[in-house]
C-alpha cells in the first residue's frame, strides 16, 4: 500500500478538456475514508466528468486523481456507481439487475443472491425481486440501482444526481434510507446533486462548484448530528447553511433574484 499518510481520495490539479470546452479546470480537493461528500454546481459545469474520472472511466487531460496514493489509470473497481438515470437493463428483473455486479466480478452465485435479496429488502423492495424495470416506478428503479452499486460492498460509492428525477416525497424517503445505509457501512461517498437541501441533509461536507470551467467556489462543513431527521431541515443550522450556499450561487451569477 502507498504512503499511509496519503488522503484516501485526492484530486490533484485535475483538468478535463474536450476539444473546445474545458469542463473542469485545475481542481484539487481531498476526501477522507468514510466521508460523505456532496457536490453542488450548475448544470454542465463538469460534475459527471469528475465522477467518471474518479471511477477511471475517463482520464484527466492534465493532473491526477489518486485513490490511496495510487493514480487512477484504468476503471477503479472497488467502487459502486449510481448513474444519473437508473441504467437498469430492461431484460433483467430487479434481482438480476443487482446481480449483474456479481456476475461481472464472478463472485459466488448463492452468496451474492442472498446479499442482493437482503439489500433489496433494506430499501423496501421485497416482493419486487422478479419485476422488470418497466414494471417499477422511477424511485424503485433508483433503489435497485443503489443496491447494485452496493452489492460488492465497495469502499467508494459514487452517485451522480441519483434522485434528481424523483418526486419530493419519494426523494425524502430514499434520502433517509441512504443515510441509514451509509451509517451502517461508513463507506466513502461522492454525491452529486442539484439540490442544495439534499446536499446539506446528506453530506459531511459540501463542495460548491462554479460554472464551467468548474472550480471549487466554496466549501462547507455540515456539523449537523446524525442520524438527521427530516425535521432538521427546518432547524436554524440547516437553514443557515442552505442560505449560505444559495448565496454563493447568487454571487456566482448562477441564481438571480428576478428569475425566482
Amino acid at each position: 500500500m502507498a504512503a499511509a499518510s496519503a488522503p484516501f481520495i485526492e484530486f490533484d490539479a485535475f483538468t478535463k478538456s474536450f476539444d473546445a470546452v474545458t469542463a473542469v479546470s485545475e481542481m484539487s480537493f481531498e476526501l477522507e475514508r468514510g466521508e460523505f461528500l456532496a457536490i453542488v454546481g450548475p448544470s454542465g459545469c463538469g460534475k459527471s466528468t469528475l465522477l467518471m474520472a474518479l471511477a477511471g472511466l475517463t482520464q484527466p487531460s492534465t493532473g491526477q486523481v489518486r485513490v490511496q496514493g495510487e493514480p487512477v489509470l484504468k476503471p477503479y473497481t472497488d467502487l459502486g456507481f449510481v448513474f444519473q438515470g437508473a441504467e437498469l437493463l430492461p431484460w433483467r428483473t430487479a434481482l438480476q439487475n443487482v446481480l449483474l455486479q456479481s456476475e461481472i466480478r464472478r463472485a459466488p452465485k448463492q452468496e451474492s443472491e442472498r446479499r442482493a435479496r437482503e439489500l433489496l429488502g433494506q430499501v423496501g423492495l421485497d416482493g419486487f425481486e422478479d419485476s422488470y424495470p418497466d414494471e417499477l416506478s422511477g424511485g424503485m428503479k433508483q433503489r435497485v440501482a443503489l443496491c447494485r452499486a452496493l452489492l460488492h460492498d465497495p469502499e467508494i460509492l459514487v452517485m451522480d444526481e441519483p434522485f434528481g428525477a424523483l418526486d419530493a416525497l419519494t426523494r425524502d424517503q430514499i434520502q433517509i434510507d441512504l443515510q441509514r445505509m451509509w451509517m451502517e457501512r461508513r463507506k466513502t461517498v461522492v454525491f452529486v446533486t442539484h439540490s442544495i437541501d439534499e446536499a446539506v441533509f446528506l453530506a459531511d461536507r459540501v463542495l460548491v462548484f462554479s460554472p464551467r470551467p468548474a472550480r471549487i467556489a466554496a466549501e462547507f462543513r455540515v456539523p449537523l448530528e446524525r442520524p438527521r431527521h427530516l425535521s432538521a431541515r427546518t432547524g436554524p443550522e440547516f437553514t443557515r447553511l442552505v442560505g449560505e450556499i444559495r448565496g454563493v450561487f447568487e454571487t456566482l451569477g448562477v441564481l438571480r433574484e428576478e428569475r425566482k
Partner: protein
Amino acid sequence: MSGTTQSKQAQSKHARRTGRGAAPANPPASGGGAAPARRPSGAKRFLESRLADWVLPLVLVAIIVAVWQAVCASGAVEEYVLPAPGDVLGKMFGDFGTFADQSVPTIVAIFVGFALAVVVALPIAVAMVYSAIVRRAIYPLLIIAQVVPKVAIAPLFIIWFGFGQLPKVLMVALICFFPVVIDSLVGFRAARPESLMLVRSMGASRWQAFWKVRWPWALPSIFAGVKVGITLAVVGAVVAEFVGADKGLGVLLITARGDMDSLTVFASIAWLTVIGFVLFVAVEALERILLPGKRGGRSHEASGSL
C-alpha cells in the same frame, strides 16, 4: 412508498397477459385496497386474447378464398387462368408425394443458405462495431453487393457451380445476407453507452460487456433482420431454381408453366407460401424463446394505439 400500487397493477396486468412474472411473495401492507379492475366486455376480451391472433387473419383469408371461389364459379375467367381454390387444394394434397419430393431440395437450400448468411453476417457485424477500419473497409462493399441485382448473378452461379444445390445455397445466402448484417450492425450499436460504462466500472472485460450488454441489446434488431432474411431466403431459392436447377419446387413450377398446367403452378406457389410462412413463424417462436426477459410492458400499454 409512492408508485407501489401503480406498479403492482401494471405487474399483475402483465402477469395475466403473459402468464409469467411471478407474483410477489408478500404484497405490501398498505395500498392493497386497489379497486378491482373493470371486467372487459366479451368482445373486447376476445380481441385482447391470443386466440384472436389466429382467428382474425383466418377470417380474412376465408373471405378472400370465398371471393376467389365466387369468381371462379361465375365462369368469368377461364380455368387455366385462375383455377378454383378447391381445385388448387385438391392438387396440393392429391399430388402430395410429388410436391414433397420436390420441396426437399428447395427447403434444404433455404436452410443451408440462410444459416450460412447468418453465420457470416453476425461476426462481420461484430467486427464492424469494434473496428472502425473494418467498418470503413466493408461498408461500401456491402452496399455494392446489395445493389447488384442478385437475379442477374444467378446465371453466373449456374455457369460456375452447375445445376446442383450449391448455386441455390449461395443465392439464398447472398439474398438474405444484407438485411441480417445491417440490422445486426444497428443492433450491436444500439447498446446504451451508459450501460457499457456501467459494466466497465465493474471491471468487465470486452467479452463480458459483449455478452451481458451488447448482445441482449442487439437481439431485437438482429431478429428484425433475420425475419426479413428468412422471407427473402425463399425468394432466393426459387429464383435460383428458375434460372436452372435439376430439382425443386421452382423447377416444378417453371416446368408446369411451360405445359400451361396452371393448377400445378398454383399448387407450387401455395406450397412455397406455406414453407415461407412456417419458416417465418418458426423464427418468431425462436425470438420469443431467445429474447431474454420482457420489454415494453408498461410503456407499451401506456403508449396505447399511437
